[in-house]
């Protein structure tokens, strides 16, 4: 059962593996490295924002003889920071790594439904990510039209944009392969007794995320190919008639609509927000239930709210586009849907907060990250409400307020959840527990500096400072009163970078330690912890396919001798 393959070589075991666990680890390592790269780009940008037009220290030579981050290069870093963080970092980590590794283990499956498709998904992602950064080396540098790639600008931008589009097509293809796999796996391969309402919330979130990926990404893939055609084949899908570029009318422009791109893009990119946050909810739910030693409050409410969230995420996209001159009827529709989608988010957050009530909470590193996630995501979500209303959005659109808002959702939100997940499941994956002291240092410093980076953005944004200014706003009189914040944010960012050294050191040092042999260090209830060793058995996962008798969060069951009752325990 544990190994149904013929001879395994190093290559088939670690590189071209079809084992979901190896692929999950491949996704995890690759995504964490890209997160580091994306974060590095941002640290350079923050230097330019704090000290505009001065030479970049230490690594200035990368930017040429003058060692300056010129505006056009700043634009490239901005576009690539967004792209790398979201498409190369967070989604592959949240969905590719966590989803791949844990979903089969948590539902009692021996692997994903399509193991080879799974490997193809990873390698398509890997190739796409390499193509993405090749852009830095083409004439004119990497894509510089923002991570949203709005035409007509993106249509006429330098060659880096073509590379970006090619990379994007690969990345979306990879997501599609992954999403189909998760869906079929969850539907078909659940162990006996694993009914829908016995699924851990984490599996639910991955399942819903898979639907979002499957339905939202193809429009952007199509749009990406259309934009490629505009750039390479002389079509004009997104170029309006009579478009003047650098004083001359573009000959191939005519009949296209730049707004069409915005619709196609945001039809992907708004569900994308939930692709980023749903797996985070899943991870946080597991960790909160485990560390409060009590069942989650409102399991079914969570499932219904997340499903509703998934559906609603497809009808809010145009709240990113109030400034495009849409009519009031359309505006009213999207404002209403946006207000409605905040309800399930509040339900989820409330259920998680209520789950803390009366629990005997263990304040370990994963739990600290999970606890911090709740208010951080709260700030991110609540600051989004004014942006969902056209009247407020007109003032706040494209300001630092928006940057602050979505970073609170994704950085101290999703990223904290992912860190929580790494600390929580590291013993499962490696058989070795990460050091708690280093973990707590990592958490506290990250928490402080994360807020140091993003909180001031709300103040700058309310003052009207635009995003995408290579000089941090120094050319504008209205920014003068709040420009001092740039230095505070930049120092916070660099210190946040330093704080990650605790994490890196922790991982490296722990990997050199001997395995503890402890299978279930957190005393968890779900199959991934109870039915296989840590690290799990080779390809096949289980000695014997488990049978499930109860729900996923049976902690502190009255009358039970121990405070956790595994899902596989008869009763």
């Amino acid at each position, binding site marked *: 059962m544990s190994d149904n393959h013929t001879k395994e070589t190093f290559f088939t075991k670690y590189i071209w593996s079809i084992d979901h666990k190896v692929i999950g680890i491949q996704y995890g390592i690759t995504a964490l490295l890209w997160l580091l790269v994306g974060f590095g780009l941002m640290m350079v940008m923050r230097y330019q924002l704090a000290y505009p*037009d001065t030479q970049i220290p230490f690594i200035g030579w990368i930017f040429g003889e003058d060692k*300056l981050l010129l*505006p*056009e290069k700043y634009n490239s870093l901005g576009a690539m920071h967004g792209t790398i963080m979201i498409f190369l970092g967070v989604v592959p980590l949240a969905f590719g790594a966590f989803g791949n590794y844990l979903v089969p283990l948590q539902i009692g499956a021996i692997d994903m439904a399509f193991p080879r498709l799974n490997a193809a998904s990873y390698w398509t992602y890997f190739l796409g990510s390499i193509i993405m950064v090749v852009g830095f080396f083409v004439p004119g540098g990497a894509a510089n039209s923002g991570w949203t790639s709005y035409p007509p600008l993106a249509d006429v931008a330098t060659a880096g944009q073509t590379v970006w589009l090619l990379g994007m097509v690969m990345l979306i293809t990879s997501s599609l392969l992954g999403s189909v796999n998760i869906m079929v796996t969850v539907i078909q391969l659940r162990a006996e007794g694993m009914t829908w309402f016995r699924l851990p919330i984490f599996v639910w979130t991955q399942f819903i995320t898979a639907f979002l990926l499957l339905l939202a990404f193809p429009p952007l893939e199509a749009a990406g190919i259309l934009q490629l055609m505009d750039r390479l084949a002389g079509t004009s899908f997104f170029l309006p008639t009579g478009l003047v570029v650098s004083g*001359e009318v573009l000959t191939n422009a005519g009949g296209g609509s730049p707004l069409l791109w915005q619709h196609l893009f945001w039809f992907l990119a708004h569900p994308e927000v939930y692709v980023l946050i749903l797996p985070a909810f899943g991870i946080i739910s597991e960790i909160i239930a485990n560390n409060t030693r009590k069942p989650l409050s409102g399991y079914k409410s969570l499932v219904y709210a997340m499903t509703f969230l998934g559906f609603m995420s497809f009808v809010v996209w145009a709240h990113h586009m109030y400034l495009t001159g849409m009519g009031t009827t359309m505006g009213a529709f999207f404002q209403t849907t946006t207000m409605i989608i905040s309800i399930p988010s509040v339900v989820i957050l409330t259920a998680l907060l209520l789950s803390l009530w009366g629990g005997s909470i263990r304040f370990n590193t994963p739990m600290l990250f999970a606890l911090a996630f709740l208010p951080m995501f709260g700030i991110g979500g609540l600051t989004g409400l004014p942006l969902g209303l056209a009247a407020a959005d007109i003032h706040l659109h494209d300001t630092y307020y928006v940057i602050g808002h979505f970073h609170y959702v994704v950085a101290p939100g999703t990223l904290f959840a992912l860190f929580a997940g790494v600390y929580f499941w590291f013993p499962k994956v490696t058989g070795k527990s990460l050091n708690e002291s280093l973990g707590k240092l990592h958490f506290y410093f990250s928490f402080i500096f994360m807020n140091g980076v993003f909180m001031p953005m709300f103040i700058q944004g309310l003052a009207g400072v635009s995003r995408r200014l290579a000089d941090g706003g120094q050319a504008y009189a209205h920014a003068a009163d709040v420009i001092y914040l740039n230095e505070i944010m930049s120092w916070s960012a660099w210190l946040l970078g330093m704080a990650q050294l605790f994490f890196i050191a922790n991982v490296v040092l722990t990997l050199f330690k001997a395995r503890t042999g402890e299978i279930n260090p957190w005393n968890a209830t779900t199959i991934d912890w109870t039915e296989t060793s840590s690290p799990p058995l080779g390809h096949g996962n289980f000695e014997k396919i488990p049978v499930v008798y109860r729900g996923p969060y049976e902690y502190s069951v009255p009358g039970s001798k121990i405070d956790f009752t595994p899902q596989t325990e008869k009763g």
Partner: protein
Amino acid sequence: MNKLLSSITLSFIVTGGLIAGEITGVVKYIGKPPKAKRLRMDADPVCAASHQEAAKAETFIVDAKGNLANVIVYLKGVKYSGKTPTQPVELDQAGCVYSPHVMGVMAGQPVKILNSDATMHNIHGLPKVNREFNFGMPKTLKEKTISFDKSEDVFVVKCDVHPWMKSFTQVFDHPYFAVTGTDGKFSIPNVPDGTYEAIAWQERFGSKRTLSQQVTVKGGSATLNFNFERPKKK
């Protein structure tokens, strides 16, 4: 301008050789000149503050005697096998205008772009034959050197930050060109003996209404004058 001419002269001293003469002359404008438009630089306080009197557009600079400035005069279809000057031609961004407003440069010759202003410029050249260039020059970046690979007819160089900033550049594969000064005079030195077709280009008249005439250089000097005339109303 003087630097340009001296660089050309220098290059000839270096290349030496053939019997050569100098083509000199004046370009005039016949008719009532249009009034120069005032440049509104209020958008950038640094630009506005750099001019005590309002700056005026340089599209048509003609003095009371009709002497026309910023005209490129050059010989067409000349073969040149000498060296390319290594002395750079300078294009300055000063007071949020380009100086010179019109210039010629040889292919391969360095062009030093200066930013003398305490503000950011984004210099954007729109050649068709050579590679387009487009880069920001923040106030701390004072100079950057570029060059053009191939000869090309006149093209626009503009600033993407300050829409009024515009200048013109022509790239030659020989050194036989000059741009008229405010007195309308020009001088093309070291021209080998022979008969040539000379062209005069002015911004307002554009590439479709250049003037052309034959000039013969023999053992010394030759004179060449051009007269741009105000187009008659139909």
